């Protein structure tokens, strides 16, 4: 790439405070959301089988809107019993604290319709 474009690109970086100025003028933050809810990213790793936002498209169980304590206890039990099915292995991927975050996040999601 030509050098002039390179310097143009670099030269823009110090202008960052203007982004904040523009955002302020727009009356909205520079992007939409604040800190993501804890547990959301971890719980998204269930979605490949249990569906986006915990709503399965078929076959596997939908896990959105389950009671946090029930789900946490199930996951903990899976992670501790003799591994037989794929969930027993998947549950072992997480610490108990992470399993609790997953259960608590999924509990906040609207339950899937049957």
């Amino acid at each position, binding site marked *: 790439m030509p050098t002039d474009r390179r310097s143009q690109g670099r030269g823009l970086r110090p202008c960052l405070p203007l982004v904040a100025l523009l955002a302020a003028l727009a009356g909205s933050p520079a992007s939409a959301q604040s800190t993501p809810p804890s547990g959301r990213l971890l719980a998204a790793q269930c979605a490949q089988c249990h569906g986006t936002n915990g709503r399965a498209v078929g076959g596997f169980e939908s896990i959105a809107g389950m009671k946090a304590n029930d789900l946490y206890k199930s996951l903990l039990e899976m992670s501790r019993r003799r591994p037989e099915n794929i969930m027993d292995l998947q549950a*072992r991927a997480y610490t108990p604290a992470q399993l609790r975050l997953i259960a608590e996040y999924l509990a906040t999601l609207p339950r899937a319709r049957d």
Partner: protein
Amino acid sequence: MSNRRTFVKMAALAAAGWSLSRPLAAQMARPRVVVVGGGFGGATVAKYLKLWGGNVDVTLVDRASSHYACILSNLVITGALPISRIQLGYQSLKTNRGVEVLQGEALTVDPVARELTVQVGSGRQTLPYDRLVLSPGVEFTPPVGRYDPVLTPHAWKAGPQTLLLRDRLRAMTANQTFILTIPKSPYRCPPGPYERACAVADYLKRRKRGARVLVLDANAGIQAEPRNFGNAFAGIYKDVLTYVPDSTILSVDSDTGVLVTTQGSFTGDVVNIIPEHRAGQLVIDTGLANDPTGRWAVVDPLTYASVAEPDIHVLGDSQGTGQPKSGHMANSQAKVCADAIIRAFNGETPDPAPVTSSACFSPITSSTASWLTASFQYDPATRTMKRVDASFAEASRPTSDGMQQMFQWADNIFADSFA
């Protein structure tokens, strides 16, 4: 006029005390992400950026109008499934998620100007970005010799290649030989070649009397699910399948079907060569394939940002974190990447403890399947994703339940990535 130039003008106006109309100013503030590659990694990152990011513009660039999943593709090769079963379009990403989809060939990246140039039809478009995500899958390094991927298909990128191999298999006659070659690890989908060997062996056993499969593996042994595939090779398929480890291809003649390997010369009637892999060409051309082998991109596994270009993320098969290369893993990494990009736009640091996982189901016979799973936790001491060994296992045996779960898994991962 590029967004950047517009921005400079607007910034100057703002600094001079000019009032800005709200919609225009709001538009200026929208961060823009461009994603290259509409496979599992690219589709998932585009979807989740919109799902979680709200006010983010996302453009997904792919040369094709739809994606053919490698998942289930071995069953298309045997004729058990139609190709339509693995064809995944981008319509839902467009209409339900608000992703802009551009069909074109991504040509070059200018990391300084932060622009991607795309060949669209006979013209070129330049897409400015705040963040670029490259998820182009793999490129193949052609073997030495007279190699022609039409005469000796790989079928390791699904689509027309899958149909070529299906037709070649279908046309086999009694007593002919099907050769499958497996490249050195790492390659896309560790259990995949062994799954294919089983699918083809099962097909030949039922349909082509006296026909055989010869598996030439450049590795020293079975790379995934050694129990299930080893049992199948030595058990139900022992009369139709021969497995030859440590057989690296030295030269190929696609016209004659002759392969010279470190274990001798072999001739096949159908020759299915899966060549060695490396990162997608755009990753290499942008100078991001910077691991010691020069084949894969070194990235920060908290964000999948390239260590060479922090505004460019590389995920899926092209990244070099040592995690397995698979559609499920690409989907998993894409969520970590999407979360990190959104946090960055909000001036926040990435999640310090991401978990990724891979699960897959492999048909062993026409009515049974096994599974394999592995998960990875971030290790802050080494700044790498470390496999959680307690989470790593294969099924104790192939079962018909496994076969049913395989289709359920496929339906859900297809929808989680593309719908």
